[in-house]
């Protein structure tokens, strides 16, 4: 009987698979990326490498010496005292303590200041507090420190914002009204991100992290990329990280263009080119984990997408490797065996610049 290896499903559940089965899954996962993203397939050697990493005997694994990469860290500020909604562990502590713990105790290569709601729009009324915190943090910290939040354009739609919900308008077949609502919201999103970051740059921020860009679809990406463009024009040396919400930009609008490209339906290797044009310093591509598929299926699929993205990118890539993305299972406490295998495979196989 063939040896079976411990593996995970996309929801984190433990399963056992033979090497042949792991390979079959990896080939299928890579094939799915090829089919959807029209990206090149993995070679037989690359599939074998994934199988080898999946079947390594240790519970946790690591990259080979010399292949280490910086790890950028979003939402770390509130990882300690945050609640479950932020994947926080509920240890009463200040944001400064959260950031410095990550810098001094955990070995993070960069850090980020963010607030508990973690969207740009709600920063407006509390921006002075954020600036104050940024100044204190920059006096004390050494690693690069972003200000970070989600563009989260849904907050501009009713009932949270002034513009009618385009989802409702589309269902009522009011297409023009839906388009107008999205376009107006995108304008406000751009304006708010720029205004907030002007304040934070004056208080010493190293730059901005735009986390989960395009969560509300192509108009969200449109508003965010325009904010990047405006910020780059105003702050030539600012660190700008554009991290995505999902692997493909959902076409809620469908006709919005940035620098001559339709935004809807773009995959990571196409998204990165627009981030470059906008003026981003680094880009955070995402590949979603399918919870019904195995770890090797998801990992091979993620690597296939990211390999092509890395190949075409001129700016550094810090791949999103959090819960439910990058081959990592969708689970509040992702198993270390899967996290470290995904980490090693992604870094060693795709020439990415960080995680």
């Amino acid at each position: 009987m063939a040896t079976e290896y411990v593996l995970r499903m996309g929801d984190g559940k433990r399963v056992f698979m033979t090497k042949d089965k792991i390979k079959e899954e990896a080939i299928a996962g890579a094939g799915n990326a090829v089919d959807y993203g029209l990206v090149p397939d993995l070679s037989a050697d690359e599939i074998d490498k994934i199988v080898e990493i999946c079947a390594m005997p240790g519970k946790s694994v690591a990259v080979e010496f010399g292949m280490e990469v910086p790890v950028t860290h979003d939402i770390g500020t509130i990882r300690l005292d945050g609640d479950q909604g932020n994947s926080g562990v509920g240890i009463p502590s200040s944001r400064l303590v959260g950031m410095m713990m990550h810098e001094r105790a955990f070995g993070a290569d960069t850090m980020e200041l963010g607030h508990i709601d973690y969207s740009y729009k709600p920063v407006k009324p509390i921006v002075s507090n954020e600036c104050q915190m940024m100044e204190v943090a920059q006096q004390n910290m050494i690693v690069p420190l972003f200000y970070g939040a989600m563009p989260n354009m849904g907050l501009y739609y009713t009932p949270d914002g002034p513009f009618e919900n385009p989802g409702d308008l589309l269902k009522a077949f009011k297409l023009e009204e839906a388009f107008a609502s999205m376009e107006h919201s995108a304008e406000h999103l751009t304006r708010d991100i720029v205004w907030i970051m002007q304040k934070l740059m004056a208080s010493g921020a190293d730059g901005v992290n735009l986390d989960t860009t395009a969560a509300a679809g192509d108009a969200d990406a449109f508003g965010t990329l325009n904010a990047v463009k405006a910020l780059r024009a105003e702050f030539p040396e600012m660190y700008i990280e554009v991290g995505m919400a999902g692997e493909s930009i959902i076409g809620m609008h469908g006709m919005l263009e940035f620098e001559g490209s339709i935004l809807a339906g773009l995959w990571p290797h196409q998204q990165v080119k627009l981030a470059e044009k906008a003026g981003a310093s680094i880009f955070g591509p995402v590949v979603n984990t399918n919870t019904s598929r195995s770890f090797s299926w998801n990992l091979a699929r993620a690597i296939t997408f990211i390999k092509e993205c890395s190949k075409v990118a001129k700016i550094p890539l810090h791949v999103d490797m959090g819960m439910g993305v990058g081959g990592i299972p969708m689970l509040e406490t992702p198993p270390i065996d899967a996290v470290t295998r995904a980490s090693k495979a992604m870094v060693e196989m795709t020439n990415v610049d960080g995680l």
Partner: protein
Amino acid sequence: MDKQALLKELSDAMVSCKADVIMAATKKAVDAGMSSVEIIDGLAAGMTEVGDQFERGKLFLPHVMMAANGMQKAVDTLEMGDAGATVKKVIINGTVEGDVHDIGKSIVSTMLQSAGFEVHDLGRDVPIAKFIEAVKEYNADMVGLSALMTTTLNGQKDVIELLKANGLRDNVKVMVGGAPATTTWAEKIGADCYAENATEAVDRAKELLL
């Protein structure tokens, strides 16, 4: 023109997402003597293709709506006879209480509506009792429950429990979705299915209701 060619033309017309093209293909099929049921099958095959292309990022939400609208207009012109008495299956859809995420759920509602279901989207942050009221009011066949946060996921379980308490659970199917939901979670809380995305939601609804 043979039947297969006409069916393909109907399907292609749907993928064009243009109402006038869909109407023209439908009229051509009627004139060729094709039955209303066959024509609807051809249009539905095209709608499935539209859903697939949406998932692949080749078509976008407005396209899906335009195709669905074109199909509805075309179907309205057909003589349905007894088949016209078919009642649409009713789905209640919403994001559970405490969770303000709306967009993914709205896409699911749109895709279900486009696939021919009667959808009542209750919005987001929906109190659990409101799901029960809606099931009763619309005599629903299915309830779709979305949650995007691990902190609100339990709301899906609460709705199922309230359905049971109201003696409604056996009358409706329950579908769950949203980033932290999984098949295992669906099984754990006694839902009938989990859908990974909007296209899968349509497939699951068809499997369970049609």
